[in-house]
C-alpha cells in the first residue's frame, strides 16, 4: 500500500492546511501521521493520540527518540507543553464525547456520501477497526487522506464502498495526491487539483460523480 514518498508528503502537507488555531486533532496511522511535521507556522493545535497522549508535536531528531513516547502508529513523537498522559478509556472518552475537532484518517475506499471503509480488505488484509470507527463516527470533522487510486489503478472514490464500512456518512473532506474533494449533501465537489494533474485526470480516476465548480484551485 506504500505510495511514493513525494505523494505521501504532498498529501500530508495539504492536509496540514486544515489545521486551525486551538483545534484538538487526531491523526490516524500511515499518511496522517506525517501531518504533525507540517503544522503551519503560528498555528497552535493540540494533537491527541488514542494510546493516551494529549499534546504531542513533531518527530524527534534521529538519535533522540524515546521508545516509550510514540503515537498510535508506533512512531516516536515529542511532547508539547500542554501534554498529559492517560489510559485508553480516557483517550476514547474524549473521542466518543465529541471533543475532537478534527481527525485525519487513511482510507481504503470513500463513497460519494462520505461512507468510509478503512479497516478490512475481505479475504486479504484484516487490520481490524482499531480506533477508526470511534474517530470517524465522533470527530466534528473527518478528513480522509489516501492515494487517489489503488495500487492496481482502480478507483478508491466510489459511488458505493465495496469493502465493509467503518462508518456511514462520516467523511467531510477527501485529500489525495490528485485532488481535494468536499463531501456535500449535493455530492462530491472538486475543490482543488494538484499541480501535476488536470480536472479531467481527476474525473477519470474517480468512480463517483464529481461536481466541478467554475473555480477549481491548484495545490
Amino acid at each position, binding site marked *: 500500500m506504500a505510495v511514493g514518498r513525494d505523494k505521501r508528503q504532498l498529501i500530508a502537507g495539504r492536509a496540514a492546511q486544515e489545521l486551525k488555531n486551538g483545534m484538538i486533532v487526531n491523526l490516524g496511522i500511515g499518511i496522517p501521521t506525517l501531518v504533525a511535521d507540517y503544522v503551519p507556522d503560528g498555528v*497552535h493545535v493540540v494533537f491527541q493520540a488514542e494510546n493516551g497522549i494529549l499534546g504531542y508535536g513533531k518527530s524527534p531528531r534521529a538519535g533522540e527518540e524515546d521508545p516509550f513516547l510514540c503515537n498510535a502508529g508506533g512512531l516516536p513523537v515529542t511532547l508539547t*507543553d*500542554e501534554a*498529559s498522559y492517560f489510559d485508553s478509556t480516557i483517550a476514547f472518552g474524549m473521542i466518543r*464525547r465529541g471533543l475532537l475537532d478534527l481527525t485525519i484518517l487513511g482510507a481504503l475506499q470513500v463513497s460519494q456520501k462520505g461512507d468510509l471503509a478503512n479497516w478490512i480488505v475481505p479475504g486479504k488484509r484484516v487490520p481490524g477497526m482499531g480506533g477508526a470507527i470511534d474517530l470517524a463516527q465522533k470527530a466534528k470533522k473527518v478528513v480522509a487522506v489516501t492515494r487517489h487510486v489503488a495500487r492496481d489503478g482502480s478507483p478508491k472514490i466510489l459511488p458505493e464502498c465495496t469493502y465493509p464500512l467503518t462508518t456511514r456518512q462520516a467523511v467531510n473532506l477527501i485529500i489525495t495526491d490528485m485532488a481535494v474533494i468536499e463531501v456535500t449533501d449535493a455530492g462530491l465537489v472538486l475543490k482543488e487539483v494538484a499541480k501535476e494533474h488536470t480536472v479531467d485526470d481527476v474525473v477519470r480516476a474517480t468512480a463517483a460523480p464529481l461536481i466541478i465548480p467554475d473555480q477549481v484551485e491548484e495545490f
Partner: protein
Amino acid sequence: MIAINTREKALSKVTTLEEALKYINDGTVLMYGGFGGIGNPPTLIEGILQKGVKDLVLIGNDTAFPDVGIGRLITAGRVRKIITSHVGSNPVTGQLMHSGKLEVEFSPQGTLAERIRAGGMGLGGILTDVGIGTVAENGKQKIKINGKEYLVETALTAEVAIVHADKADPFGNLTYIRSGRNFSPLVAMAADITIAEADEIVSLGSLDPECIVTPGVYVNMVIPSQGVNWKWPWEEIKGSS
C-alpha cells in the same frame, strides 16, 4: 521563549469569576465536584450566591453541611432539584425535601459516580447489579447477560460543571487536592462547560504530564480560587467534646 508564550496565549482558558458566572443562571443543570464539602469550589459557590442564581438543578455526591460548600446553595434555597447519593450530613436538605421545596433523586454512590462518568465518556450508560432487590431498582430497565440480571443505569450530563483544583495550567490541565479529588474529575468530563477554580495557576509546561488528573481538553475556563471560606464541622466540634 517567545514561541512558548505564544502557544500559552493561543491555548489559554484563564478568565475571571465574573466571566465564568455568565454560564450559570436560573435553572442551570450544574454538576459539582466534592465529597462532604471537600472539593466543592468555594469561590464559584460564593459567586453563585452573590449573583442570586436560583432554581438550580444540582448533580453531585452529597449536599455537604448547611454552611459548608454546596450546602450553602441548599440552605439559601437556590436549588430546585438534586440528583445525589447521600444528604445525611445536611439536615436542611432533608427538611426542604419533606416540605416539598426540593426534589431529591437518589442513586447508590458508586452507581452515581459511574453514571456521571458515562456521561463524560459519551456512553449511554452502564450495567450494574448493585441495588437489585432494593428500592434502588425501582423504575429502571433490566437486562440479562449470560442469565444474570443487571440494572440499566443511564448516563448523566450537565450544562455546567464546577470543580476545585489544586493546580491548573492555562490549557486547563488539572490536579486535585488529596481527598478533594473524589467526583471532581468525573463531573469535569460530563458537562458542556467545565469551570475550574484553582488554588494555583501555573505556566504551561510546568505540570508533570504523568500526574495530570484532568486533561485540559475537558476544561473550558480556569479561574483563581479565593480558598475555602467556611469552617469545617470538625473544627467547630474541636474542644467542645
